[in-house]
């Protein structure tokens, strides 16, 4: 008998068939718990405080007062909006990491309307102009890489990444042009006297209108992706471009259409940020949320309703960690470390949902 000298590996991986959804969620919850334990240990090492009290501080920082809770919901709405925007493109496996720049261009368009036409048009006209221009400008910003991808297969990840920094410099240029006082490089509150172009508060609640817009968008995108022909075409292109071509879907058309949609939604996010929340324009106004949104969308497996949960986790961490840093005198970047760790665990745990690990018994023949 010929004896094989090839070393048999101790473990091997088996791709699972679909895992029951509740088992998948148990794995995800375990991953989050593990991540929280690791974060707790790191917090303990850095602050020397009891992790339980640190987490209590975080919860207090997020929900301690009704103002804080409202602030959390409002932040969640903005992040969720950007996450919704990137989702259709991702489902198509179009790696648009340019949401940061697209949102920023939406912010720029909104701010431009508010500054240039703020006191010349009626508020109704101004809003129509703001909505139209923010959507169009952001959609065009997304369209540029989409066209090159569709026509010449230009690498969209790197293209959209570069478009972010071009957008940042364009905004930076305009912050000097419109700065108050001249040359300071800062715009400050736009139309602070007349509040022209500021989203009105509904029923005495500031930001309520933002939240309503995003809630509606969540439902619309959920239906669009799951129950429409467009949504179906997006998932076919995402699964296999060859299959898509075979069943007669025009891949370039789907790519361009979907990126226009992604860009338009980014424009709405920009509108919400400038008109609905900050009422100003700086080059850091998006604050990395264009990148965070990518992770939110991925962790939710591109499901708009699950994104409410994943964006909540991120916003909770950021608000909570900023509370910790205020109380214990730490640097606010602490939240970035915690966010990073949690995301590592969540994206890592998908492996255990998709694969099972079998240990090979010694001396076992086939």
């Amino acid at each position: 008998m010929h004896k094989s000298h090839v070393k048999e590996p101790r473990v091997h991986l088996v791709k699972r068939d679909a895992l029951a959804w509740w088992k998948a969620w148990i794995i995800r919850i375990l991953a989050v718990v593990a991540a929280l334990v690791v974060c707790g240990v790191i917090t303990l090492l850095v602050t020397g405080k009891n992790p339980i009290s640190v987490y209590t501080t975080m919860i207090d920082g997020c929900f301690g007062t009704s103002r804080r809770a409202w602030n959390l919901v409002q932040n969640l709405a903005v992040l969720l909006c950007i996450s919704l925007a990137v989702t259709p493109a991702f489902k198509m496996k179009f790696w648009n990491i340019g949401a940061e720049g697209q949102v920023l261009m939406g912010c720029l368009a909104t701010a431009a309307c508010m500054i240039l036409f703020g006191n010349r048009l009626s508020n109704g006209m101004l809003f129509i102009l703001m909505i139209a221009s923010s959507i169009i400008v952001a959609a065009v910003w997304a369209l540029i890489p989409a066209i090159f991808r569709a026509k010449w297969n230009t690498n969209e990840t790197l293209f959209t990444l570069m478009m972010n920094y071009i957008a940042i410099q364009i905004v930076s240029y305009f912050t000097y042009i419109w700065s108050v006082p001249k040359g300071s490089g800062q715009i400050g509150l736009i139309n602070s006297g007349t509040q022209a172009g500021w989203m009105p508060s509904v029923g005495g609640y500031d930001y309520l209108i933002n939240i309503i817009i995003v809630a509606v968008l969540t439902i619309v995108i959920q239906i669009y992706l799951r129950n429409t022909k467009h949504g179906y075409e997006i998932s076919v292109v995402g699964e296999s471009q060859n299959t898509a071509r075979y069943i007669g879907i025009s891949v370039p058309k789907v790519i361009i259409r979907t990126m226009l949609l992604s860009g338009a939604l980014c424009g709405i996010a920009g509108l919400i940020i400038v008109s609905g929340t900050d009422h100003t324009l700086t080059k850091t106004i998006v604050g990395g949320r264009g990148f965070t949104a990518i992770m939110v969308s991925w962790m939710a497996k591109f499901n708009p309703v699950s994104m409410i949960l994943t964006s909540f986790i991120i916003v909770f961490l950021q608000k909570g960690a900023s509370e910790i840093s205020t109380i214990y005198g730490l640097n606010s970047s602490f939240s970035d470390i915690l966010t990073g760790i949690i995301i590592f665990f969540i994206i890592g745990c998908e492996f255990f949902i998709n694969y099972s690990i079998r240990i090979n018994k010694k001396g076992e023949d086939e």
Partner: protein
Amino acid sequence: MLIAFLQRAVMQGIPLLYGSTGEIITERSGNLNLGIPGIMYVGGICGVIGAFFYESSVSIVRPLPAILIPLACSLLGSLIMGLIYCFLTVTLRANQNVTGLALTTFGTGIGNFFGGSLIKIAKSDMPSITMTATSNYFRASLPFADKLGWFGKLFLSYSFLAYAAIIIAVVVSYIFKRTWTGLHLRAVGENPATADAAGINVNRYKYRATCIGSMIAGLGGLYYVMDYANGVWSNDGFGDRGWLAIALVIFALWRPNASIFGSIVFGGLFIAYNYVANIGMSTQELFKMAPYVVTVLVLIFVSVRNKKDSLGPAALGQSYFREER
């Protein structure tokens, strides 16, 4: 004037050269590591932490440990970042883009957090921390460079890390072109299934290339803090250079020797606004987008021309699962 401009351009270019050489090695193995900006932050801050504890634990700062300790800390820090990326994308088969972006968030957070903490420990009044003694050793250049006029200034006035960057780029370029290791690595990036069939251990190559790439990129952060910024760590001071390094990879068409030249071009574009006469603050901002616009143009140009060897590794950004061939 021109000499001074070129000299500044080279100094601006060196961190980008480290970053892009590291990223080229990584991308050649098929891993698109968008965590490079975070890794460069970690490389910088780990060097600063090493230097800080060495400077504060001894009374006389000696040259050899003053260089070796930050260097070792920096390499170790960026190695750990590279291992996190590999473990998630290669072993756990996670999505490369998402992992990379998370790594950048994490790394930038670590840089700014520990930078801020050191500032607090040092009870500094300024929002920055200064390692003058260590930095002086890092910045030491050839003593006779000043005496050689423009030639000395242009070619000999830099510190050892700057020359190391160029040497590393040349060596990596040689390895890619002339050795089996380089050939195998490129095979893994072009078509991992074929490489696997030829008996190449795909995962081992991906791990090694990504970790070595991370360590080289981390040195860019160290160079920036210790040399370019004179040992001053200020939060967010490193800025967007990490992304610029990724842009440089495209500009250099995935060739390390081309990125030596490219880094000087990018460095020059980065500071060009200082040398253009009579422009306002606002126009300066438009000048600063030049490196990114140039990168986009290169990206468009190579894809329209569609010549195979300038498009980058074919399997870039895709995880490899042997079972899913």
